[in-house]
């Protein structure tokens, strides 16, 4: 068992899968000579050559569409989109083509493709480079959307995504790349569509994904250590399909829930989770479900404004306290 960064876990997985399967190739902006904007693909051009590590023009619709076409013929392209913000330029190829080709042709061909892309704010990148727009993709049947929060999950889910026969949007977060965690020497592919209880508990359920799952874990451990509050943390890991069962089962046990998400509140992922809790655990609820989400503004550049807009360990802790007070369980 080694302790490595999230970045290293992604790099190692890409390399191992390329060694394992000749059909796996990488395609995207700046992934070769430049070694990737976030250095996930460092060294891979040198090792595998231009055929399998393909630098593209700045033309997202063109190269994402080309990856979809190559996947239709059985190759396994792993696309790097420099940030999720640029995926909007390729939206037609992702939503109208990658997601639909298996269905609209009656299952005759599929699109075994992975779209890796980081999102998230907190780096003072301004409104167009700090978005959490995973909801746009999680809304679409035919796509799979995964959002791992730890290095071990990043590896297990990337393995599963590359070997999957459907288009998978693989969400990374800029804040996660340097985080560290234990990764077993041998990692099995994760089961896409399954959430994980990353910390069992009895007092309250905290639900998150990607960066906010990591923050939820830290907050839960802190609350346990400081106040003896025993929170259960559910890391969604997959936004489509969505594992409602694990969420509902947890809330039935704890009787209350806080959802932590980096995206905007209105219509966000948390809204869907809250509706699921209402559908499956209404009679078990002791308090209304709370959501901690980003402020509904285009994310500003100035540091104090950006900090105020994004959910944090402090805002999540406050929401947990308020919920526990409402149910009379705060010690």
């Amino acid at each position: 068992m080694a302790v490595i960064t999230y970045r290293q876990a992604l790099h190692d997985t890409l390399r191992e899968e390329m060694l394992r399967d000749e059909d796996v190739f990488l395609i995207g902006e700046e992934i070769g000579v430049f070694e990737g904007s976030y250095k996930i693909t460092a060294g891979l051009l040198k090792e595998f050559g231009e055929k399998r590590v393909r630098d593209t023009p700045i033309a997202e619709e063109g190269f994402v569409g080309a990856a979809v076409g190559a996947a239709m013929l059985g190759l396994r392209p792993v696309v790097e989109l420099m940030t999720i913000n640029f995926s909007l330029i390729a939206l037609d190829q992702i939503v109208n083509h990658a997601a639909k080709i298996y269905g609209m042709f009656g299952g005759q061909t599929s699109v075994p493709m992975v779209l890796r892309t980081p999102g998230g704010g907190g780096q003072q990148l301004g409104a167009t480079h700090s978005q959490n727009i995973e909801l746009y993709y999680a809304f679409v049947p035919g796509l799979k959307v995964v959002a791992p929060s730890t290095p071990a999950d990043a590896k297990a889910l990337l393995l599963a995504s590359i070997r999957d026969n459907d288009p998978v949007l693989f969400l990374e977060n800029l804040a996660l790349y340097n985080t560290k965690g234990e990764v077993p020497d041998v990692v099995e592919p994760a089961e896409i569509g399954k959430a994980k209880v990353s910390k069992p508990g009895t007092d309250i359920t905290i639900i998150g994904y990607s960066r906010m799952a990591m923050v939820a874990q830290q907050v839960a451990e802190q609350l346990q250590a400081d106040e003896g509050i025993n929170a259960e943390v559910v890391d969604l890991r997959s936004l489509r399909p969505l594992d409602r069962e694990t969420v509902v089962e947890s809330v039935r046990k704890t009787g209350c829930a806080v959802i932590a998400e980096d995206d905007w509140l209105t219509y966000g992922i948390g809204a869907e989770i809250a509706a699921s809790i209402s559908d499956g655990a209404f009679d078990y609820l002791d308090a209304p479900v709370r959501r901690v989400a980003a402020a509904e503004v285009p994310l500003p550049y100035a540091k104090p404004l950006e900090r105020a807009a994004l959910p944090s360990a402090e805002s999540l802790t406050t929401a947990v306290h308020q919920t526990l007070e409402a149910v009379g369980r705060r010690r």
Partner: protein
Amino acid sequence: MAQTATRTKPATRGTTKPRRGSVRRGGRFAGESPELLQDYFYEMTLIRRFEERAAQGYTQAKIGGYCHLNLGEEATVVGLMRALRKTDLLFTNYREHGYAIAKGIEPGRVMAELYGRTTGTSKGWGGSMHMFDVEAGLLGGYGIVGGQIPLATGAALAIDYRGGDQVVMCQMGDGTTNIGAFHEALNIAALWNLPVVFVVINNKLGMGTTVDKSSAESELYKRASAYRMHGERVDGNDVLAVRDAASRLVEQARETGRPALLEAVSERLKGHSVVDPAKYRSEESVEQAKQADPVANFRAELIEAGILDEDAAVEIERKAQAEADAAVAFADDSPHPDPSTLFDYTYATPVANDSRRLPADPVF
């Protein structure tokens, strides 16, 4: 103002000496096999009759949705498909019934798809705009204007990646050359030496907007020069000219891996789709399209050249009508998809917690 088509010279490829059993007299049929010419006439007529039956099926409400017909473009369709090997791959836009037939799919299966039946090319999931058949090499009709162009480029990338000798043909309409995907995909195909022939069917109308109102350079083949790609224009009403030009570009792509752009100038006999009465068209434009009717003109030419007599032409037309009628009968007799198969084609690799909820079902 509509562009005037320029007819390209007859084929320069191969020998000019008449083959055995070929037309010996001079003129544009010199060196052609009479059987092949009759075969082209049959296929063009079949597509014409098929599309007439499709229009009829639409008015009878047996066909729903949109229905874009190939009426007036039969010479282009047949000429292009004769330039491809069976193993070559074709991506088209939504106006693809004729292409599906000419690429080798049974007309019955094409009609069954229009009828939304399980025996259709996409098992009833696609309809008019989304036909597909791996064996015939039709990798799909696509409904979003230009959406197919990056896909075709990617298919050519896969062929190149594996060292295969197939060529990809990517068909589109004139309006498509103004969208970003066209330019991005042509640039990528040229940069990476991919074996794909882009074909623009210029019928001078993008729905109701004329090509000179939508394209700053309305001689569309010239756009190839921006990508250092060979571009060429051909008379889309001449099946032989289309076949010869397409054959040259396809074989060149096969040998060199270089992409090319072919513009076939054609006419649309009817509206954009079955429901479009084309009121925006001038009488002059409609008359010009009628005069250019490739099926009627090819028939007259074959008779004039002594390749067909009137009786033989009528016999071919009778056979084509019978095959179109048989396609309708096949579609009519085919089963509708069972609603229990609704969730069969969301994902190729099944995963945990995939929703199979029907509209009124509770979530839990």
